């Protein structure tokens, strides 16, 4: 991996950490890493900027809603300054934009390995039930509420307790009609309709981070979260060896013809032991660094796929490897803030700048 320049987004690791830092640490943990990491930050206080030895350079980039051309122009500036060989977007909210920019970026010499629009649509929360039904994949009963007049029909169909979920973020467990009304309204105001009503499965939740190419699994890392935050984000977890999880993951990604990284959220019902697919997130999870310890360094493999190289599927992940997330304080040099605020970029010690 000679002098590869990799740009990564999602550098803010607060109570709901973005995956970028885990992706970068995974790349740097690979034995053959000899490249340059370019952080693409949205804010001068994105926490990863201040993590010593993580980044070679940081550039502020516009938020996706500021427009495709603005983002593209900024990426081209970064490319001229620092050269980007591979770009790894790690946030759900960016993927649509990067999908649209893929061909322009490729022409400029910037490669990515992300799912296409059709795959993204099929796994969208509002379409997942249909996809699962068509492909014989178990998922909890779900009602896609597109207008408020159908609310009582939805409640009758799903029954209590049920989850009210936004199509992008947030979920609330509801046990009464009043709970449902409040939750639907909260989500409608924030994200708009549709809102999903989903049967609550009582049991154990598992996650699988996977990387696939045209529906074939290249690697998979199943985990059980052993500590979670109030929002259900993993604060500690352990890797598993579970053939049933592997089978469900392979079947799902094959049916999607998936290319790219993803995180599958799976629930095992306590009473029946049956597995249900809850969600598919189309990017690496924030806990991806665990893979570096569990012989499943998926970001490292993604680089090969982005570059168009052939890759053999990895052997199964090593089970019984755990992680604990550790929140700490980083010293935040004023010069960093100054450089980013005034110039929009920061060159950490040892930066490789493109020679003209």
């Amino acid at each position, binding site marked *: 991996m000679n002098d590869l320049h990799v740009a990564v987004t999602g550098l803010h690791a607060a109570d709901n950490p973005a995956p970028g830092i885990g992706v970068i640490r995974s790349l740097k943990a690979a034995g053959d890493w000899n490249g340059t990491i370019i952080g693409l930050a949205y804010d001068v206080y994105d926490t990863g900027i201040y993590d010593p030895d993580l980044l070679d350079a940081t550039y502020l980039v516009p938020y996706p809603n500021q427009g495709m051309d603005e983002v593209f122009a900024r990426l081209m500036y970064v490319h001229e300054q620092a050269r980007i060989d591979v770009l790894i977007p790690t946030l759900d909210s960016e993927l649509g934009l990067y999908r649209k920019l893929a061909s322009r970026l490729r022409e400029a010499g910037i490669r990515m390995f992300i799912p296409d629009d059709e795959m993204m649509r099929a796994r969208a929360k509002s379409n997942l039930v249909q996809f699962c039904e068509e492909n014989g994949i178990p998922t909890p009963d779900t009602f896609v509420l597109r207008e408020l007049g159908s609310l009582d029909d939805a409640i009758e169909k799903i029954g209590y307790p049920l989850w009210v979920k936004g199509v992008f973020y947030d979920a609330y467990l509801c046990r009464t009609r009043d709970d449902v009304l409040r939750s639907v309204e909260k989500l409608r105001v924030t994200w708009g309709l549709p809102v999903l009503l989903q049967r609550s499965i009582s049991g*154990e939740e*598992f996650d699988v981070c996977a990387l696939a190419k045209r529906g074939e699994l290249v690697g998979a890392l199943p*985990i*059980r979260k*052993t500590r979670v935050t109030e929002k259900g984000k993993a604060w500690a*977890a*352990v890797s*598993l*060896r*579970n*053939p*049933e*999880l592997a089978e469900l993951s392979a079947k799902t990604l094959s049916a999607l013809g998936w290319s790219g990284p993803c995180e599958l959220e799976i629930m095992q019902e306590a009473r029946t*032991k049956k597995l249900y697919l809850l969600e598919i997130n189309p990017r690496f999870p924030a806990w991806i660094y665990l893979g570096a310890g569990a012989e499943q360094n998926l970001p490292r493999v993604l680089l090969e796929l982005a570059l168009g190289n052939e890759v053999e599927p990895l052997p199964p992940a090593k*089970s*019984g490897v755990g992680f604990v997330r550790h929140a700490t304080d980083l010293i935040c040099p004023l010069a960093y803030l100054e450089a980013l605020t005034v110039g929009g970029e920061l060159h950490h010690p040892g930066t490789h700048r493109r020679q003209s």
Partner: protein
Amino acid sequence: MAVKFTNDVTLSKSGFLFDHASGQTYTLNPTGQFIFRLLEQGEESERVLPQIVAEFNVSESTARKDLDDFLRQLHELGITE
């Protein structure tokens, strides 16, 4: 009859038991470890009983109660069928 394990499990020397499929962990006391290792080797539960009596110098009724309790817990936890 030999006890059949449902999941892939590993018992360390310290008595720490890890279920590779579920990620659950348990701690076994010395009696539990002794029984578990015999079951793991495919020993039938009836043949485990006299070995508990001999190893821990307890009566057969005490050993049987401990063995039955332990087997029930393994089953309830989904570790054995």
